[in-house]
């Protein structure tokens, strides 16, 4: 049972068939097997949030999910999210507000922030902080990130009305 196990899943809209060892986590599968290196690996025990991706439309920690557990699932990484244009405005707001420096946390931050904005069009700063509480940033001190998310929410509301 330690042998590679066949899995079939959808990654960024494309079907992927692979054989993976049970011990391989999703983050390493995405990075090493599919060369989708936008998913970052920080702490490898669920504390830092750098590996946040979407599985079946919900954000999860890719370091805390085995690749074999994603058999039949639909995975969206920062590459897919970015290419689709879904977060173009959020990315622009991060850039404009200097909400990133080294950028290591940014893919996970964008994933978590967009997850919040999908659920709540008008989050206050406390809710933004709570939703991003699982994502560490060691550069910015978070203020600029909260600003960028808040601004994006406001601009999206204005665009809609």
């Amino acid at each position, binding site marked *: *049972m*330690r042998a590679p*196990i066949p899995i079939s899943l959808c990654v960024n809209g494309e079907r992927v068939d692979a054989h993976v*060892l*049970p*011990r391989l*986590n999703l983050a*390493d599968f995405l990075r090493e097997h599919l060369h989708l290196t936008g998913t970052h690996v920080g702490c*490898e*025990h*669920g504390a830092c*949030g750098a590996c*946040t991706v979407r599985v079946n439309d*919900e*954000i*999860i*920690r890719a*370091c*805390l*999910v*085995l690749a*074999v*557990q994603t058999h039949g699932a639909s995975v969206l990484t920062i590459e897919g999210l970015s290419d689709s244009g879904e977060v173009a405005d959020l990315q622009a707001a991060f850039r404009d507000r200097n909400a990133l420096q080294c950028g290591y946390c940014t893919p996970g931050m964008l994933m*978590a922030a967009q*997850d*919040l904005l999908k659920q709540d069009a008008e989050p206050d700063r406390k809710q933004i*902080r*709570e*939703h991003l*509480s*699982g*994502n560490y940033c060691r550069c910015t001190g978070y203020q600029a990130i909260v600003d960028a998310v808040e601004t994006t929410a406001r601009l999206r509301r204005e665009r809609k009305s």
Partner: protein
Amino acid sequence: MKASAFAYARATSVGNALELLAAHGGKAKVLAGGQSLMPAMNLRLISPELIVDIGEIGELRGIARRGEVLSIGALTRHVDLLKSPEIAAHSPLLTKAVAHVAHPAIRNRGTIGGSLAHADPASELPACMLALDATIVVRGQAGERRISAKDFFKGIYETALAVDELLVAVELPGVRKNASHFFHEFARRHGDYAITGLAAQAVVKDGIFKDLRMVFFAVGDRPVWSNAVGELVNAAITPALMAHISAALREELDPHADQQASSAMRRYLANVLMRRCVSTILARPDLDARAA
């Protein structure tokens, strides 16, 4: 780090999972949401030979009301608990507590059964199970056992669950009339494991506690049921009585020290929580004087 190598089996039913556990015993580990197991494996704190993935077993999922009792399947995720109108109506303490369980991305995977079987003494749900007088339902090949939450938690990561048994559900008894609750924890960052926390369930009539179940967490090797606060039941609550209870609680608790907090700090924080709980539930701000 990465988890060491292991074999993997996807259980197709509870019966199949129990067969696998019976065959491999202590060398196997059950994978539910994996949000505690995977960190432990990645840190090489544990290296099971076989992972039995129960994630696809549909019968372990969901929340159902049977009469007064609310039954929660082991694979019900934290996010499901948080968004459940049944739980918010039946046991609002649990809704309140789950908001403190880790972060959104973890709540999307982590399960109630996984959290209880893992039995981290700093986690929220075990304490809630004691406060809510829950029954933990476990199944083995010999049949089902129903264990009171009070008897389930045995120590750090230790429970009454045998290696060949599976936690299948928890049952929350009907909520009594005039029930109220309190939940709060102190943590370095919202969603982190608590430094000290309190889950409490009470029955209050005319400003008097008719029942009070206070369970502290992160202050011992398992959820800590406070006997000391029992004196608050059927008593007129005065500042003098609060001072007496504070002293008794300090005696009763024997918290550990770690890199987050000293034993004295945890005792102090538990006292702050006890006072905040009493004053909040009774709507008596006068009782929230800081523990001396």
